[in-house]
Every structure is written in C-alpha cells, then in structure tokens.
C-alpha cells in the first residue's frame, strides 16, 4: 500500500541546449508565412490576399515549393502507406469501422483483409455473415492506410502477415505528431518486448512473439499468460512512453530504448512521478545528443 500525495508544482520545461529555444520557424494562426506567390499551399495554411497565412500554431515545414504548418498536437492526418493501430467500433455490411484517432472513423473493407485460407481465397456470402468472428467491436488491429476517401476518411488494409488482429499487450494513446516517421514501425526491442509505433499515435506494446507463430490468417490470438518478466518490461516501456510524451520527445525505437535504459534504476511504478520523469527524460536527451554528435 502506498499513496503518494503532494502539492502540485509548476511544470518545468526541459531543454538540453538553450539554442533550441527561440526558434523562428514557429507560427501562430493568422501569421503571414510569405507573400511570395510562387509557393504552394499545404496543410495548416490558407491564402488571404495573395499572402500565405498560417491557420494553426506549429512549425513551418518547407518541401520544395510546398509549405505546410505542422501543429504540435492534432488528430491523425493519414497518408497512404502509414501504419496505424486502431480499434474496431462498428461491424457493418462488408466493412468494419475503425477508430484511429482521425477526424472520421476509418474503414476496413472485408475485401482488404486476408481471411484464413490464403491470399487467393474467394470471399463468399458466408464470410459477410461471420465477419464478427474475425473482428468484433473493441478488438484492436494493426493496419496500413490503403487510400484516403474524398471526405478525408481513411481506408485501411491488413493484406500482409505483419498486420491483423492484436493479441495480448498494452495500448498507449499519444499525439500522432510525437511519432517519428521511419522505414519500419514494427520493432523487436532488445529489452525483450516488441512495439508497434502507429503513425496515428496509438502505440502497441506486446511480448515478442516466439518462433513464427502458426498463422491463422492473423485472427488467432494466444490467451496464454504472459510471463512476469515480460510484463515488467512492457509496463516499464509503457511508463517510459508516457514520460517521453509528457516532455514532448520524439518517439522512435532509439529514444524509447534509451529512456528504458535510463529508467532501470527506478521501480516501474515510480517512473510516472514528475521528478523521476524529468530525470530520465533528461538522461534520454543526453544520450540522444551524444549519439548524434
């Protein structure tokens, strides 16, 4: 039994290098980015009187002639090829609705999933009736964005062995802007657990699967108890993720791993105390800078 009670404190911002502050590429809504008409308008901007103006608060990103403003915190703006973790909210005719932290629920069509029996299996009317046996409300899946509908809703697919229904593990919901875009978002961390860093900010932590599990089209989930050691690693990673997110550190495999290593001297449940969080995030930052330099 432990109850940790304290007075609230004013939050401190952690910054490793002072030079990082006072950046000039930060804008607020209504700020004019450029009056040069040669640029193209991207997300987070609008044109007013031939002037490219910011509509959200965030950092300006320039890709060739395209100017975007990326807000610090936002709902998921999916693009084709993004890896997402989502939760089934509704089973409809021939499709599932999936909550992916987007502005509209995403869609997973029955024709975009691999059903047991291999790639070439034809979908029968029976499949439509037994959709709930594959995925039901509340189930978690990992998937990839296949296309974006005109109204902005995402269409997902799980046509690869790495995607599909998720089994035992822990979901952490964070801001999508904290997840770094990488070649792969599936990582088997050396500390003994695996992680899916969904582009939509949903992070899935799960015990590293042993030898390649018998694939039943990705719909079989093991309900065997997870070992205590694995649980501790997963819980520690979960708290590390929350600590990094609380201090706005970009999430990718290395930052998570460094944070994990920095946290080892503390008990898992203590990581979420503000002072411990500060300490390990500072250590993580230092390690990241060392690696860079």
């Amino acid at each position: 039994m432990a109850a940790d009670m304290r007075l609230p404190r004013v939050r401190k911002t952690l910054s490793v290098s002072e030079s990082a502050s006072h950046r000039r590429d930060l804008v607020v809504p209504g700020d004019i980015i450029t009056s040069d008409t040669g640029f193209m308008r991207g997300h987070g901007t609008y044109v007013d009187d031939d002037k490219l103006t910011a509509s959200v608060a965030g950092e300006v990103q320039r890709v060739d002639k395209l100017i975007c403003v990326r807000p610090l915190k936002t709902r998921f703006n999916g693009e084709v090829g993004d890896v997402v973790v989502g939760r089934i909210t509704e089973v409809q005719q021939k499709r599932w609705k999936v909550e992916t932290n987007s502005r509209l629920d995403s869609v997973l069509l029955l024709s975009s999933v691999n059903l047991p029996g291999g790639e070439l299996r034809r979908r029968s009317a029976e499949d439509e009736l037994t959709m709930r046996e594959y995925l039901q409300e509340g189930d978690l899946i990992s998937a990839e964005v296949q296309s974006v509908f005109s109204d902005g809703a995402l269409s997902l697919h799980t046509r690869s062995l790495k995607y599909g229904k998720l089994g035992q593990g822990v979901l952490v919901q964070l801001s999508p802007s904290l997840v770094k875009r990488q070649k792969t978002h599936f990582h088997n961390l050396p500390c003994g657990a695996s992680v899916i860093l969904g582009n939509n900010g949903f992070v899935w932590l799960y015990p590293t699967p042993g030898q390649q599990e018998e694939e039943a089209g990705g719909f079989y989930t093991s309900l065997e108890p997870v070992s205590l050691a694995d649980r501790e690693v997963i819980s520690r990673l979960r708290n590390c993720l929350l600590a990094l997110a609380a201090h706005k550190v970009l999430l990718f495999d290395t930052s998570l791993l460094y944070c994990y290593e920095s946290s080892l001297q503390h008990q898992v449940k203590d990581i979420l105390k503000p002072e411990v969080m500060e300490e390990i995030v500072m250590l993580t930052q230092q390690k990241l800078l060392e690696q860079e330099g």
Partner: protein
Amino acid sequence: MATAQVSEAEKVYILHGIREDLRVDGRGCEDYRHMEIETDVVSNTDGSAKVTLGHTAVLVGIKAEIGKPRPMIPNEGYLEFFVDCSANATPEFEGRGGEELGTEISNTLYKVFNNKHSVDLQSLCISPGEHCWVLYVDVLLLQCDGNLYDATSVAIKAALFSTKIPRVHISTDDEGGKEIELSDDPYDCMRIQVENVPCIVTLCKVGHRHVVDATLQEKACSVASLIISVTHKGTVTCTRKVGGGSLDPESVFEMTEAGKRVGKALHAPLMKLLQHEESLGRKTPKVGFLG
C-alpha cells in the same frame, strides 16, 4: 472518458497481471496512483480543493449559507451535495448525460459525510431550531480516468479542511428578536474539525483479486466493486456494492479488510500535506490550473 473499450485479449492481459500483482502501469494491487492536492483554489468559495489522481481531476467548492435546521434535528447544521459531471470531462456527459452518474455519486456522499460522526454538525448550529450553517459541497468533475469516488472524497476532506466560516454574533434587541451579525474580520472565522472525516476506498474485483484505484481499463475488466468509507482510526462507516455483477460474501469480507487497511493509510499523508500547505501560508502563490 467515463468508460473505456477493451478487447478480449487486453482483458486477459490485465486479468493475468492483477493475478500476479503487477498491473499494467507497474503498480501492485493496493497502490494508488500519484495524487496532487491543492486547497483554496477558487477564491469566491469558503473552502475549495483540487485533486488530480492519474488523469482524473476533481474540483470541490464549499459555500456556507445560513439556513434553517431540519425539524427533527434542530441543533445541527447539515451538508448538501451536488456532483456536476461536466461535459469537459467527456462528451458523453453533455446535456443531461452526466446526471445519472452525478446523482449516484452525490447520494453516496450524503451517506458518507452528512452525519455527526463524520463532521461535527453541532458546531454548524447557530441558534437551535432557527438558524444553522448549511454547507453546500459542490463537486465538479473535470476529467475522468477512473476511481472518481476516492478522488472526490479526498477532495472533499481537503476542501472541508480549508473551509473558513465567518463567526456569527447573535444579539437580542429590545423586543426579544434575534439579530445575526457576521464578523467582518476575515481572520475571525470558524474551522471545521476534519479529523473524523472518512475517505472512500473503491475496491474493484478483477478476476479473483481486487485492486484499489482502478483505471478505466481495469474497471472495464471488473464485474463489481465495493465502496468503503474509512476513518483515520480504521473504522468502516459505510460500504456499498456498485456495478452490475455480483460478489460472494467471502470476497466482500476480504475486500472490506483490504479497504480498511488502505483507507486508514490514506489519512496520515493527506493530513500531513494539508498542514504543510497551510504552514506555507499565503506567500507561496497557488498553482491552480496555471502550473
């Protein structure tokens, strides 16, 4: 969010973890999350407190008004409770969506706090049968992340501790009529004895074990929970089963014992914190929502 969705496999994971005394966030079965408490955060109330427990945030404001004592108990004042489940906490509470939960919590609060064993109600009496102080305890839920009862009870205890009721002088005029005069001096005030005010401990039965301070995900796995109010001496003043499922008698006894143990241990750090905050005085600025 008032409820969380959890898939079957996640449930199994949570269940097995609790069986092994290692919860998803690394806590043991009888550990509370980190709690932050601050009193006197709303200046136009007589007493107030803000408590955050995990992401759960509760704000309690107490206003003292002069009213008429209840006819059956003419020499006591009383407490009125109102729980506002605001839409700020979750869109589900918009409009009248939060009313049911609000009524459920406030009914429990009446049973736990509005009796003379918890609060010295006689000290709230101004003149028997005619005037007494009525304490309006208004609870505002700002964010729900599980375990509302415990957070609310701690916030109420803290707010009662910080409540300052102006002293009243009763003078009799020539015709025998009584006149009530409130003291102008802000330091001339009455405090409420909070020593015997209980705290609520909610025990959630998950699988074959029970946990305190359940998160929303853990609550989604539990069939039923037991609410126990415990004083600093470890006396149980109220128990109540909530939730749809059923509990067998053995586990009720087991949970009561655990609740007693946990509840008793809540009071000491809380009182220490409240006294520490008071000793800091007015010089340290309040953090409130600006922190």
